[in-house]
């Protein structure tokens, strides 16, 4: 079997555990797929040279009777913002070139404990700041559906790797849409879990109160298995909580009958691409035809979500990125004659333009005299947005929007206009500000490019998302479409 790369995670794990195929065969198939497609996609920053030997040890564990491995032998791509011990973590930034962390992120360690094998580290926007992966300090990643288009971002490498079948599953991180938006652009499933569901230990922080790691997969069920594996309280993260899934498979067994789907029509009036809107309406019709009940919901403060997000996220980022000062690790600018010069030149040369822009913005909004007008007010709006959702969920089980206002844009199209780029996040940032879980699932094509349907549910009610998402998959064949590679 040479096309083992076509299998999804559940199939791989089942076959490996039944010893129908070996983890080594699966890994070889994916490594050669990467070798073949990587020159066109550029999804990876690092490929794990120990992947095969790890596959061998999974095979021997299985032969010794180890069956408690829901992801036995499943290759997984990891966004380069999550640590894997003894493998470089660069966050796609020059300032961390060759940085090797001494510990593994909790979510990655949990994935490995479930039997998954780390394929490598994927490309991203530098420090997860961006919506196109063009802000990588190393190279842009291309959308597997069209080499001229971006894969989205910031977890563009992970989304592209899963879409191009270089990996059945991947981990990304989502601060303002960085999992859901590239999932939509690449036509795969992506989940941003409830804030606190997945440990952030080993996730290099962009905006600590918004960051969450989550899965990419080609089916909702695969995403559910990954989410179950990585979830749960971690003693290394004081903001993590214990809300494990009892059984990942049971979570996805629902259908759409009686599902109350809220749609914030007011919020969708302007700026949505016609093709995207068509796919979105079709998706709603399909849900309704299978018994879902549509509701109009009001989320009045979402109008301020993007502004609020760019204050909170940049403020936290300006502080989180202060540690890259060239003193202890990473690249230090040579030739400085005093401390301030060393700091200045290290950071000037090490960070890309977008990162610098956000550090400056974040520093400004926290400055004495501006704090109340920006940061404090943003926190108040954030509380109001949260309250909007609380009220909306009184009358519905999930809230549906398009994941993005438009499908993937062209490489270079928005790089000169940061504001336009920021508006990419308009439908995804509310879930981060409120801490809610969100799912993006393929729901059609617009001009040959994938469109994503976003579903959000109550805090820690990922079960509802998975049930709804799985029901939608059973109704449609969008998730079976593959890019023309």
């Amino acid at each position, binding site marked *: 079997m040479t096309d083992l790369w076509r299998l999804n995670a559940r199939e791989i794990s089942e076959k490996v555990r039944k010893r129908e195929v070996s983890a080594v065969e699966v890994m070889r198939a994916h490594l050669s797929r990467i070798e073949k497609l990587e020159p066109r996609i550029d999804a990876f920053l690092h490929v794990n040279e120990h992947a095969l030997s790890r596959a061998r040890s999974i095979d021997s564990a299985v032969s010794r009777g180890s069956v408690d491995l829901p992801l036995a032998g499943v290759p997984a791509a990891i966004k380069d913002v*999550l*640590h894997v011990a003894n493998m470089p*973590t660069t*966050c796609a930034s020059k300032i*961390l070139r060759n*940085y090797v*962390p*001494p*510990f593994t*992120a909790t979510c990655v360690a949990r994935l490995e404990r479930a039997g998954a094998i780390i394929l490598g580290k994927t490309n991203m926007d530098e420090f997860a700041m961006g919506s196109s992966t063009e802000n990588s300090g190393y190279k842009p990643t291309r959308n597997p559906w069209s080499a001229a288009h971006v894969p989205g971002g910031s977890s563009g490498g992970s989304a592209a790797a899963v879409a191009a079948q270089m990996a059945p599953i991947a981990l990304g991180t989502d601060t303002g849409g960085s999992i859901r938006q590239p999932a939509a652009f690449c036509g795969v499933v992506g989940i941003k879990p409830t804030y606190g569901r997945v440990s*952030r*230990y*080993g*996730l*290099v*922080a962009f*905006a*600590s*109160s918004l960051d969450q790691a989550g899965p990419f997969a080609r089916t909702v069920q695969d995403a559910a298995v990954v989410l179950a594996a990585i979830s749960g309280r971690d*003693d*290394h*993260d*004081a*903001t993590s909580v214990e809300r494990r899934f009892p059984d990942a498979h049971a979570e996805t067994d629902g259908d759409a009958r009686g599902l109350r789907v809220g749609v914030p029509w007011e919020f969708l009036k302007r700026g949505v691409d016609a093709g995207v809107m068509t796919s979105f309406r079709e998706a709603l019709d399909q849900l309704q035809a299978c018994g879902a009940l549509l509701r109009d919901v009001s989320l009045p403060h979402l109008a301020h979500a993007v502004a609020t997000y760019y204050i909170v996220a940049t*403020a*936290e980022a*300006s*502080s989180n*990125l*202060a*540690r890259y*000062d060239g*003193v*202890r*690790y990473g690249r230090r600018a040579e030739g400085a004659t005093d*401390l301030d010069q060393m*700091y200045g030149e290290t950071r000037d040369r090490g960070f890309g333009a977008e990162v610098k822009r956000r550090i400056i913005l974040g*520093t400004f909004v*926290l*400055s*004495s005299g501006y*704090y109340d007008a920006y*940061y404090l007010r943003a926190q108040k709006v954030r509380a109001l947005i949260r309250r909007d959702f609380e009220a909306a969920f009184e009358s519905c089980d999930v809230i549906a929007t398009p994941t993005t206002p438009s499908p993937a844009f062209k490489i270079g199209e928005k790089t000169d206009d940061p504001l336009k780029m920021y508006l990419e996040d308009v439908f995804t940032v509310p879930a981060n500000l409120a801490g809610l879980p969100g799912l993006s699932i393929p729901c059609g094509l617009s001009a040959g490019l994938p469109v994503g349907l976003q579903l959000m549910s109550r805090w820690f009610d990922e079960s509802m998302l998975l049930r709804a998402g799985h029901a939608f998959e059973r109704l449609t064949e969008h998730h079976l479409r593959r890019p023309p590679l």
Partner: protein
Amino acid sequence: MRDWKAIRARYEPVIGLEVHAQLKTATKIFCACPNRFGDEPNTHVCPVCLGLPGSLPVLSRQAVSLAMRAALATHCTIQTTSIFARKNYFYPDLPKGYQISQYERPLATEGYVEIPANEGFRRIRVQRIHIEEDAGKLLHEGFAWSNDKSGIDFNRTGVPLIEIVTAPDIRTSEEAHEYLAALRATLVYAEVSDGNMEEGSLRCDANVSVRRSGEAALGTRTEIKNLNSIRNVARAIEHEISRQVALIESGGDVVQETRLWNADRGETVSMRSKEEAHDYRYFPEPDLPPLLVDPEWIESARRSLPELPSDRRRRFIEHYGIPAYDAGVLTLSREVADYFEEAARASGNPKAASNWVMTDVLRKLKEDTRPLSACPVSPGRLTEMICLIDDGVISGKIAKDVFEKMWSTGAPAGMIVECEELTQVTDASAIEAVIAEIVGAHADQVAVYRNGKKAALGWFVGQVMRKTQGKANPRLVNELLRKALDG
């Protein structure tokens, strides 16, 4: 000089102190590294306290418990919800580029520390106590590479600190000294901190301003840093008050700034002006949830508190009848107070115990620069000696020698008295024999005495004591001499 004193007296200094105390926890505040001083650089470090990318802080409960003890010992109100905040600034000893501290919502507020003031006590209000992490230490000298670079020791990074901030209630450098001594004693008693200023486990910054006496408005203040001993705090404040008064008197204005104390030169020098002051861009720490303390936790912290110095001082005065000053000295350290109390109770003579501890034990310890824990004379041994005096076995004068011998040999008083035959001669016939001999040999002195110069009695006492090598009971000698001379 007299003029200067008069001028100085027209001004009232207003002083507030900010004290940082390292907490005596087993581990650092946000990671499991040991909290230990004095080891090789960078031997107690991990991804968290090094601020490596992807690491997160997890709050130590023990640090909170100790901070609450400090808050209760200074009569503060503990806030059931307090919030950690990031204080942002760049410095090589600060690995994350921010210090995790508390800002708008500290752990505890509105307490006080008592200091002695004319026969009674005065309260210096504590405005707030908050928890924060310590920074590392720059190593500028003492290494092979010190000529062209500096090193950083991160062993101290993440050691838990509390910052205790007073209201501007202090009026003199002496009061500042008293406050620090009292606060230090309280923290040490409560086993919150070592209180060692030289090693940096207790650090102090002072805010100083002056105003003309009677004026209500505060003058412009300066902040003085780098005060590494209680004595230096007092010296620096004294110097700063004089500097500000002289400046105003010569028509100048005090500038709001941070000044550094230079102990060698005995003066403060400008470090940075208000314009150069950092904008720390405080904001709530998103990596740590709000710190919630429930009443049970506060109660268990309260139960773990020992009797505090101010309470103990009060009890010593009332219960043992010793002077306020003595009680103050004896309670400055818990060990000294324990020592005194054991000897006072066992001997049943608290005044003697107080005198011996104050004048002899503490003096000898200071001479030998030893801690009380290494004192060769235990409270039990001191008690034995006090009882020998009270029972008339040895005189107070001999006791001084006995104490010296106890100190140098560690032997009990009874054994020293026995071996060296220092027991007082209380046998009247033996003393009478000596007196008869002396009176017989010195008819001239007897005549002087009998001619009305009663002071000559002293001469005879001295002769008798010399003959008996100081062992004769002085009361008995006096009595028998009078009998013999008065005829």
